[in-house]
């Protein structure tokens, strides 16, 4: 959180005030009312992530009803990009942090694993804007994906064994090729919310 520059914090604060209607906290409705989010298939999960206590890194579980600016900033900090000065170690931590964020988005019942049901739900949501074709195929895709995770991580299972769910280690393993620390970021360089209404941002 301390890695944000003063400029960026100011901009985010401006945006926070805009969303909350100049209140101290924002609730889910405030976020749901953002018009641009309406087209996003995983809208619910994104909003849920903001109110998820696990993303505050204070070893709490559950969810908030409303969040303040500090919590808002904490969630945003997951999307910082690495700089030239970031060391290898720091990159590792960053990657873990971001993967953890994604993991929490899938693991809705907070039992430490992503079960087949949860994964199916996630894929269904992803395809939720694609109508009937999406729903049919979602199951098959989720099953195939789960099978892939199981086969890569635990290649030799006896027929009676049961693969409980994707643990965080397995999750890391399968997404290792994506280089999350460079991919999961947004450009905070010129976040200037006042230009939002005019259209294009300055970055």
């Amino acid at each position, binding site marked *: 959180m301390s890695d944000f520059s003063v400029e960026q914090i100011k901009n985010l604060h401006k945006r926070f005030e805009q969303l909350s209607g100049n209140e101290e906290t924002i609730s889910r409705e405030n976020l749901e009312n953002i018009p641009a989010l309406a087209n996003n298939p995983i809208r619910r999960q994104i909003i849920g992530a903001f109110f998820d206590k696990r993303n505050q890194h204070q070893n709490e579980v559950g969810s908030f009803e409303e969040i303040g600016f500090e919590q808002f900033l904490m969630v945003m900090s997951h999307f910082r990009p690495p700089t030239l000065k970031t060391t290898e170690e720091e990159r590792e931590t960053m990657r873990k942090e971001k993967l953890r964020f994604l993991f929490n988005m899938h693991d809705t019942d907070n039992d430490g694993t992503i079960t087949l049901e949860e994964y199916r739900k996630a894929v269904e949501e992803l395809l939720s804007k694609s109508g009937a074709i999406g729903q049919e195929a979602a199951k098959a895709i989720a099953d195939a994906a789960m099978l892939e995770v*199981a086969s890569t991580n635990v290649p030799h299972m006896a027929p009676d064994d049961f693969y409980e769910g994707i643990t965080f280690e397995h999750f890391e393993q399968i997404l290792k090729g994506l280089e999350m620390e460079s991919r999961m970021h*947004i450009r905070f360089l010129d976040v200037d919310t006042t230009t939002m209404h005019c259209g294009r941002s300055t970055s």
Partner: protein
Amino acid sequence: MAVLRLTRSSSGPRLTEFICVLLLVLVSVASASRDVVPGSNETWGNPARATQDDPHHQTNSTGHKKAFPVLSFHYEEVKKPLEISLWILLALLMKLGFHIIPRVSNVVPESCLLIFVGLLVGGIIKAIGGEAPGLDAKLFFYYLLPPIILDAGYFLPIRPFTENLGTILVFAVVGTLWNAFFIGGMMYGVVDLLSCLLFGSIISAVDPVAVLAVFEEIHINELLHILVFGESLLNDAVTVVLYHLFKEFAHAGTVTVADAFLGVVCFFVVSLGGIMVGAIYGILGAFTSRFTAHTRVIEPLFVFLYSYMAYLSAEVFHLSGIMSLIACGVVMRPYVEANISHKSYTTIKYFLKMWSSVSETLIFIFLGVSTVAGPHAWNWTFVIVTVILCLVSRVLGVIGLTYIINKFRIVKLTKKDQFIVAYGGLRGAIAFSLGFLLTDSDMKNLFLTAIITVIFFTVFVQGMTIRPLVELLAVKKKKESKGSINEEIHTQFLDHLLTGIEDICGHYGHHHWKDKLNRFNKAYVKRWLIRGERSTEPQLISFYNKMEMKQAMMLVESGSAAKLPTIVSSVSMQNIQTKGPARRRAIPSISKSREEEIRKILRANLQKTRQRLRSYSRHDLLIDPFEDVSEVRFRKQRVEMERRVSFNSDCDMSHYLTVPAKSQETPPVRKVCFESEHQIYTYDDSESPRGSAQASRPHPSSPDAVSLLDESPQRPSQRGALRTRGDAEVRAKAPDDKEEQDQLKLSRCLSDPGPKKDEEEDGSFLS
């Protein structure tokens, strides 16, 4: 003949070498024959014509009659096609030869070897006394270059390209400009400024053919590859503008500010115009492919022809043909691939690879031949200074630009990356051809010599040393992508997530606009350009289908080749499927097309080694016999069941144990059947409503479990009043005819627990 005395072990490569040499000689003779033979050809030609005229005279002449020529030699008539074919054949045999001789191809990149061969051929031709053909500029630009560019453009990896587009453009435009002016400016003094600048503009552009040829063999990581390669493609616009600009003004002699301004405008026109022309042809091609469902055979031709037309149309207006071709390929591809058949796709892929391969080979050979052939004006200082300046300007340009670019990039370019980008700036045949097109003869030879030297230097020295340098510097290599469905799911997920976060921040960044473009594409464009229901198919699903097809094909191939697949894992669907309540439908619903595929594949595979099917079934999603089975079999089996039931059950009594029910209006009867083949269970609770009682479910893998044949409740009129019980229902599938014949499995038969149709728990059921 030495051939006959060769030992068997080494006869392969030696024979090839011998044939290569023979062909070399043949080609040289054929080309040289142009000068040497024409005289004799006429004498040969004439008798032929004379004999044809003769019949007219024959009737008049009294006795002189020539014998009918049984065998005559008409070389002139087939000369052109024959020469072309011989050259191409030579090129291909050389390519073949290099790969058979392994030691050489590991050290020296193919392009060097090919130039060397060209030099040899040129030397032989000159020795014979003929005139070696130079690299004709028209031949190069209209026939040899387009296939290579189309191949590159059609298969351009879009994601890394668009992610790094800013960097690529800066290198291509600013970098090339810097190179041209630096070299041209430094050379001032040798000749007048404008000619120098012209020379600079020719020599400054990184060449896509050379880059492709060298980089393809070293397999560096995607980022560097796309940076250098993208730069080599996009700098064409700059090259075209500068070349024409300076060529015009070299005659005029002076340049004014207005001219410079016009030059800048021209640049935008050339590049954007080229892209637009390409995009228009791309859309036309995509639209045409929508209607080719009934004429699949000509589908690939549309792709090739529209792209070639895009190139030629751009050349008509002196727009950038390369950018037009790239734009056409990129625009056309997603829509065309959704419309064409799989075979057409394979055809397109292989034809493009084939043509580009031949073109590349020919280009390098001709480079070699032209070197021997062309008139040279060797000027030590000019050449050496040119080579040094090229290197220096490239290094300086890359370092300077990277410094600026890194301020805007997220994934910064390290020093290693910069070195590879700088070192990979190879010059090639485009520079040579542009030089060839110059008309001013005294400058031309000077320039041509220098250009050839630079090309040789970059291709030989840099091309040969880049591979050990890459190893030495431990540059990241290309990672083997296995097409993981998890990665695809999460890539899409990330896209949506980042778009959402951007929206929450109120920040209209890359993801926002990309998302907008995608939605526009989906809502309007796809509907026009893609036929049928595929226009609404989301990307994840098409990816998944493609992967399934690939896996299925791999399975079929490996089944027949008696090879085990690389990932032998014993995990199958049952390991991850929870044994939940009976309600859940465990058959994944699948679409018709997937059914078809599965059926086809199963049919094909089952005809081969059946044993192996068993060992694969453990890990492969498609034919796990314990879980997923096509609905077709299910229906077939249902039909069979009905057939059996419709028979008088007395006939088949031996197979059934009908347990008599207690008296009731509709006594429930359970038939137990001895399953003789291996069983596949599906859990289907669709038929009748369930009470809350759930019997324990049978474990799917236990072969001893009883199989119950429960007739559906919709047929009460069948003999024996078959009504299902309210409890857990298992439909055992009678096997397909083609399934293996197992031993007769003894099944435990159960007694009907009781007539009451209440929700009583039954313990004596299936285990």
